[in-house]
């Protein structure tokens, strides 16, 4: 589904990704871990198409299409979903209105007819349950005045609505208490099918107890320096990132 | 600008005074006087002076053709100093620099201080004089530029941290008769240098005072200036100060203007942020009673990107006093990433006090964060009740809340002795409300 080859990117003069290689197949969950500043969020942003980052090398294929050639909204239509680490607030725009616009744009891209208000509301109700999100939250302005947990739940709600092929969860666990974490993780797990894939970007192993990855990659200084199964996350947790840093230093 | 001279009489009196005055024969003086004659005095139809009837008051309260220096018997400035503050003191008596009352101005911390006239004669001040304030900018800048007879030039050489603040005392002694004075300040804070300058005006006597200031200040790259004005003249001062501070890249400016009394105080205070990554903290406080009119017209002009300005002016108005605030923020094209904030808050204590405020934003760049807020109201009844329910008498409760309201403006003051003094002055005044 996703093939990343030797991807390099920078912001301003600063090189952040120094040659990432990654292959994600349908049905898989990949975790990307790494110390602060290793380039985890940059990778997520570059895949979603944030313009501040300049891609300086490599390529990304998504369902055989050259992802880097696509505008961010087209990437979304093609099936890439980024759950933001810091979802932005947009005053005056209700989540319902926002989601309806987005969903119908994506449906149009897929050649599906637009949902009418009734069908949309029905779908929304169904998905709301999944992330235990309150209706009142959705009629408020998008993310405005939401708590950290509410924002993250709203991201997963949107993911449920859109049903993307590849979901990238950028530090979705940050700022969540244990109950919110469980709800968010449950939501993600329920959305897993053999046809979609998930990339979980996280600093801590904690989230991976709930969203069990098939593969774990360790990102350090803009490169994937170690890959393994879910046990790698546990090893990282017990040994700490210094373990990686030392290993890299001696290598 | 549409200006009116309240009558030709007034204009003629200034003409007569100009012709008869000694020492005003330079080309610059003459050009400035022409500029003044062209503009005339602003009337209340003039947008920038619509609430400040200065021409009328000048006509009513002054013999404008009488401009000879007023003698003074003051021989000690002890009463006018700031307690516990170790400062270099420069004294102006009725607009003229007094060497005998001032500290010795030779070689303080490597500073250069001289009378403006001699600095102009020696060429030291020529690069700066009338470069920031042009006579045509404002009728009172023109008037000052035409009539000024004395002033001070202060130059802080590059990379000099001046530990001892400079305190300029403007003392008006009008025990015997009225005084008309026009004073200038020219200050250059060199690259990477630091200075604290305090200007304090006081008066004694019952006659009228008309005093204009033209103050040109350049703050060079990486320099820091703390600039404090304390306007505390009793009685009949009519004052118009035009001040312009020009900031170069990465400079830091902290200003605080405290206005406590006087008949009419007009401050035209402009800051030109002409370099990137500057910081400007621009605070003012007016605590007025009686029939004092205090008019603060401020401009923060962002000419270059990436700078930050924060303006906070507050006022408490009692008696028949009148407060005017006009704050302009300009963000010029290309001054992207500017952060400019402005806030003007007022409390009216009586039904006879008035406030006219006009906070104004003019923005020509899109990637900026600018806001202004302005409120006029009273003390918070709930807070007042809370304090009283804890056993604090109404008067004390009011003073406490007013103090809390006012003291926020003192945040820019770093020097403890100065802060204590200002704090005391504010508390004293609020206790009288």
């Amino acid at each position: 589904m996703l093939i990343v080859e030797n991807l390099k990117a920078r912001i301003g003069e600063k090189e952040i990704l120094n040659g990432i290689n990654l292959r994600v197949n349908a049905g898989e969950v990949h975790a990307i871990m790494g110390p602060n500043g290793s380039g985890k969020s940059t990778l997520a942003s570059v895949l979603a198409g944030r313009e501040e980052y300049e891609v300086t090398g490599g390529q990304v294929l998504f369902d055989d299409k050259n992802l880097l050639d696509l505008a961010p909204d087209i990437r979304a239509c093609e099936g890439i979903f980024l759950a933001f680490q810091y979802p932005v607030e947009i005053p005056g725009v209700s989540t319902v209105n926002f989601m309806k616009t987005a969903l119908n744009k994506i449906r149009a891209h897929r050649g599906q007819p637009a949902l009418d208000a009734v069908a949309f509301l029905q779908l929304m109700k169904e998905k709301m349950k999944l992330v235990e999100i309150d209706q009142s939250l959705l009629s408020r302005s998008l993310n405005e005045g939401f708590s950290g947990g509410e924002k993250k739940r709203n991201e997963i709600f949107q993911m449920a609505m859109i049903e993307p092929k590849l979901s990238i969860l950028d530090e979705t666990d940050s700022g969540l208490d244990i109950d919110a974490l469980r709800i968010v993780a449950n939501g993600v797990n329920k959305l897993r099918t053999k046809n979609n894939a998930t990339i979980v970007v996280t600093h801590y192993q904690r989230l991976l107890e709930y969203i069990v990855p098939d593969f774990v990659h360790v990102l350090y200084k803009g490169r994937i320096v170690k890959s393994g199964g879910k046990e790698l996350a546990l090893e990282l947790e017990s040994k700490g990132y210094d373990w990686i840093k030392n290993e890299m230093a001696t290598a | 600008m549409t200006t009116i001279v309240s009558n030709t009489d007034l204009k003629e009196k200034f003409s007569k005074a100009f012709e008869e005055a000694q020492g005003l024969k330079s080309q610059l003086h003459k050009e400035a006087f022409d500029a003044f004659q062209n503009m005339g005095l602003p009337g209340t139809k003039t947008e920038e002076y619509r609430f400040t009837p200065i021409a009328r008051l000048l006509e009513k309260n002054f013999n404008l053709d009488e401009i000879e220096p007023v003698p003074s018997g003051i021989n000690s400035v002890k009463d006018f100093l700031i307690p516990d503050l170790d400062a270099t003191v420069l004294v102006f008596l009725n607009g003229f620099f007094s060497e005998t009352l001032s500290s010795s101005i030779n070689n303080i911390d490597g500073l250069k201080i001289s009378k403006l006239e001699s600095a102009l004669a020696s060429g030291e001040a020529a690069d700066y004089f009338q470069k920031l304030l042009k006579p045509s900018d404002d009728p009172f800048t023109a008037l000052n530029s035409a009539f000024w007879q004395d002033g001070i030039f202060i130059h802080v050489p590059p990379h000099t941290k001046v530990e001892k603040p400079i305190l300029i005392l403007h003392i008006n002694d009008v025990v015997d008769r009225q005084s008309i004075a026009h004073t200038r300040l020219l200050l250059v804070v060199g690259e990477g240098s630091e200075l604290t300058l305090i200007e304090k005006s006081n008066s004694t006597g019952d006659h009228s005072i008309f005093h204009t200031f033209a103050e040109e200040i350049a703050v060079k790259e990486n320099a820091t200036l703390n600039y404090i004005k304390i306007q505390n003249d009793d009685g009949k001062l009519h004052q118009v100060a035009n001040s312009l501070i020009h900031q170069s890249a990465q400079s830091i400016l902290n200003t605080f203007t405290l206005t406590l009394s006087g008949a009419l105080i007009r401050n035209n205070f402009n800051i030109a942020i002409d370099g990137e990554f500057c910081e400007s903290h621009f605070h003012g406080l007016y605590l007025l009673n009686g029939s004092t009119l205090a008019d603060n017209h401020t401009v923060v002009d962002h000419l270059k990107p990436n700078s930050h300005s924060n303006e906070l002016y507050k006022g408490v108005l009692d008696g028949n006093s009148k407060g005017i605030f006009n704050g302009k923020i300009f963000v010029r094209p290309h001054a992207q990433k500017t952060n400019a904030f402005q806030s003007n808050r007022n409390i009216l204590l009586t039904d006879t006090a008035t406030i006219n405020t006009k906070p104004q934003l003019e923005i020509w760049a899109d990637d900026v964060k600018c806001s202004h807020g302005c409120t006029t109201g009273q003390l918070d009844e709930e807070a007042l009740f809370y304090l009283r329910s804890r056993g604090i008498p109404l008067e004390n409760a009011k003073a406490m809340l007013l103090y809390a309201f006012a003291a926020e403006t003192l945040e820019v003051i770093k020097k403890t002795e100065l802060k204590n003094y200002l704090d005391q002055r504010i508390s004293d005044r609020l206790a009288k409300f």
Partner: protein
Amino acid sequence: MAKDNQVLEEFTSKDYEHGWAVNLETEESPKGLNEEIIRFISSKKQEPLWLLEWRLKAFQHWQKMEEPKWSNVTYPKINYQDIIYYSAPKQKVKPSNLSEVDPELIKTFEKLGISLTEQKRLTGVAVDAVIDSVSVATTFKDKLKELGIIFCSFSEAVREHPELVKKYLGSVVPMNDNYFAALNSAVFSDGSFCYIPKGVRCPMELSTYFRINAANTGQFERTLIVADESSYVSYLEGCTAPMRDENQLHAAVVELYAMDDAEIKYSTVQNWYPGDKNGKGGIYNFVTKRGLCFGDHSKISWTQVETGSAITWKYPSCVLKGDYSMGEFYSVAVTNNFQQADTGTKMIHIGKNTRSRIVSKGISAGKSQNSYRGQVRIMKRAVNSRNFSQCDSLLMGDQCGAHTFPYIDVENNTSKVEHEATTSKIGEDQIFYCLQRGIDEEAAVALIVNGYAKEVLNQLPMEFAVEAQKLLALTLEGSVG
């Protein structure tokens, strides 16, 4: 960013939707302005002598006045002798009902999306249509008549209800109030008149649709709405004009008069031709709108969505004379290309316990200049009064300007005035968030701008809200900051 420029480019080449002109046969006065022209207009309208005298007096005032220079707009000097002050679609006989109205005229309004045929019309809106200088049709008149509501063209009101017109004409905006109001008072040709009797809640929205059609003409209409005690009316105003290379002057006067416990809600969607992308042509919209809350507990609310005109100069105001009276002003002003808008409001608090609220949202794009100018004045007598103002500006691109000029004058110590203003641009992170959810850039801007303006759009009656939202999206299509 190159991409933004490209999108901006697309946007600026966007055409004005209502830019067509129809071939209506018109009857016009000669160009120019003098007493003869005023007599001509007055006699064309078969006016009583008192009104002619009123016009002539206004003209005398106007001749002594100077065109105001204080606003933040620039335009070449207007030659007032080069304007046609009266133009009326020619009709052989005065139509007694709609079937007799010139079919071309009916078509004009169909094109504007306004059907004058009552059965086709949405129930709930009565329309008075003014083309060039004259009111051509008023719908639902009979139904309103049953309730005692008078809703007709100004000329008809002068004929049928002279006592009302005489009493209230100029009572809120005196003939010599300002330069453009004086000009209007001298030459106004038609407009709408509305009277709601005591205790009546007008059951439908009343609406006037203005259209400038003829070339070289100015439009000078007058609207007068009087709401008697405890009555309520909601009034809508819309306008368009054809694309013409020369500038056309529109100087209207609107007077609202609210008695005890009465409420008037006045909504405008202003979409006059704004000129082309190089700033050629477009309407000069110099309008005086003022409401008098004469009675205690009366309320006047202005809502405006300003997207058109080359230059807008208008300050719908409220004079809060009655105790406990209330004034509101909700405004969205969008400028693009070379448009200039200097708009805002005045809230004059005279009565006790008066309240006012101002919400202004300015959006500037292209090379436009957008100014908010407002005054809140609390007079000494207006004890316990309150005002809250929120003035926000949104900039798109770095060649436009946003300006805020609020005047706040308070003369007593029991009142509270709060003013807040912010200037910002559409956040890149907001746009990216929308993009990431599959919403394209144009739609994202429309969504965000509509969200930004929501507080104002919410004030519009349903029929107008949808139109206004579309208009905003259309005007700003592609102008990404």
